[in-house]
């Protein structure tokens, strides 16, 4: 057998440590609740509702990111302008801001003491303690993940192809929809997954804006405080399982299609 370099063994051992680091605590959590406990939890309407609300709100956040983020990601991938670095840094801001600060910041523009809040109030839109508020927060924290992923996707498509299309007389928009979009849609799906994954895990900002209605992470927190670990773990397990299935399905779907192309 050919002799491996020590570097090879270094990569392997680091890999094992990283896997153990991620899996040990999670395995512990996932295996802690008994099967009957898991079944019982699933019968609890509040739990199902909160997991559904989590899916719904983070999915909405991902869709909003898709609508508003895609053109911006395209712009950033294709053009160079003064202050581009600034724009990129601003897009990354939600990643670094502590979560409760995000919540307070959103509440302060949504309150009656702010003109935006007054305007929203006149329109009958409520941010505090509403699904709208939760989606607003989740979009805020998820948007950078979508934009950055999709920007990288656009950058990977040779501008040459677009130039050919344009030189043959296609408009910018039809070039985008007929050439760029079909080539970049996989990165968009990955962007949606990243954005939704980030949104689904958000707790700190949401609990400030909306405690009720409860998304799953808030319910896990509430269950832990009110009843202890035993009753919060099953909710967490279900959330992890649902997310795992969803994201796995999306990945398999996109990978298979990619191979076909």
């Amino acid at each position: 057998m050919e002799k491996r370099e020590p570097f090879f063994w270094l990569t392997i051992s680091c890999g094992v440590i990283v896997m153990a680091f991620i899996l040990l605590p999670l395995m512990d959590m996932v295996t802690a609740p008994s099967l009957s406990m898991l079944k019982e939890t699933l019968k609890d309407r509040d739990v199902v509702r909160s997991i559904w609300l989590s899916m719904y709100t983070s999915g909405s956040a991902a869709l909003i990111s898709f609508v508003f983020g895609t053109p911006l990601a395209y712009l950033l991938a294709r053009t160079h302008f003064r202050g581009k670095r600034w724009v990129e840094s601003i897009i990354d801001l939600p990643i670094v801001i502590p979560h409760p600060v995000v919540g307070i910041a959103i509440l302060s523009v949504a309150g009656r003491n702010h003109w935006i809040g007054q305007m929203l109030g006149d329109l009958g839109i409520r941010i505090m303690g509403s699904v709208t508020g939760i989606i607003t927060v989740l979009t805020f924290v998820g948007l950078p993940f979508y934009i950055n992923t999709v920007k990288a996707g656009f950058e990977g498509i040779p501008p040459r192809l677009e130039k050919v299309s344009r030189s043959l007389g296609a408009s910018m928009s039809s070039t985008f929809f007929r050439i760029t979009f079909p080539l970049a849609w996989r990165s968009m799906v990955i962007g949606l997954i990243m954005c939704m994954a980030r949104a689904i895990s958000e707790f700190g900002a949401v609990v400030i804006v909306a405690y009720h209605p409860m998304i799953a992470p808030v319910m896990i927190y509430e269950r832990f405080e009110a009843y202890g670990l035993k009753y919060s773990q099953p909710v967490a397990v279900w959330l992890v399982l649902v997310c795992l299935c969803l994201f796995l399905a999306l990945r398999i779907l996109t990978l298979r299609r990619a191979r076909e192309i």
Partner: protein
Amino acid sequence: MIRRHMIETLVVFSFIVSAALPCSVGAEPQGKLILFHAGSLSMPFEAMEKAFEAAIPKVDVLREPSGSQKAARKVSELNKPCDIMASADYQVIDRLLIPDFADWNVRFATNQIVLSYTDKSKFSKDITADNWYEVLQRKGVSWGHSDPNLDPCGYRSLMVLQLAETYYKQPGLYNKLIAKRPKENIRPKEVDLISLLQTGNMDYAWEYLSVAVQHGLKYIALPDEINLGNYQHDDLYAQAVVRVTGKEPGTFMDIKGNSCTYGVTLIKCAPNREAAIAFLTYMLKPDGGLKVLKDMGQPPFVPCRVPTEEMKARLPVELKGLVEVKK
């Protein structure tokens, strides 16, 4: 900065791989002192931390504010290392920590429930101690309280509403008020409501007097008969009963009203017992921590109290002189 972060992550690594931390034994008070306390004690404890660290610079006080129940659960269920736990309701210590995690429970301060607001709150010019329950029912007024299932301030706020029904002779008042308060206006801790008041998302919030004073909020002080601040009215307060969630989902238990009485205890498996006793000695002194509490709107018991001689006997020697036995 990054290096520090890496080192800490490595520590977490090794922590997960190795076993739990054992109780340590030391001599001179030094090192880290971990303090779990009720959210409403944040400001006085911050001031005490500064004063204590100035006197004993070798000790680094690490405070973790949270709901009192959560603080107890962090000790009893997560086995998080902790030296001292201070609760906004001394009964939380009796219920969740004694006898497994603590031996005694010293009552050190009182508080009361007030209705807090800002000058931008709706009808802030009209509201008084006589008409507040009518203002809260007006159209467009948004008010809230903390979660009765998680936070003593939450169920205490509800008790005040119940007691008000009798005191102001307004039959049905409690139900009418609760019907006016959407679930969305509930928050986990009473301090969480402050940012809602200050950003204009809420008009009125039920708070501890101390929290209102410390955050510079306006507030309506209520009569002693309903404010849960005077333990001489404990019999009256006991007429208020709030149903909160029990030990598991779907179960409930009733909590009877009593005066807001704060309790503190030393955790049995305290990683830094010496520093903890030094801090408690400072905290329970009339010219030390108790004075800080008094200055911040939280009337202390001078001296502090334990319910029985037997419990006093279990106190560390250093603290025995600072405590009296009183029911």
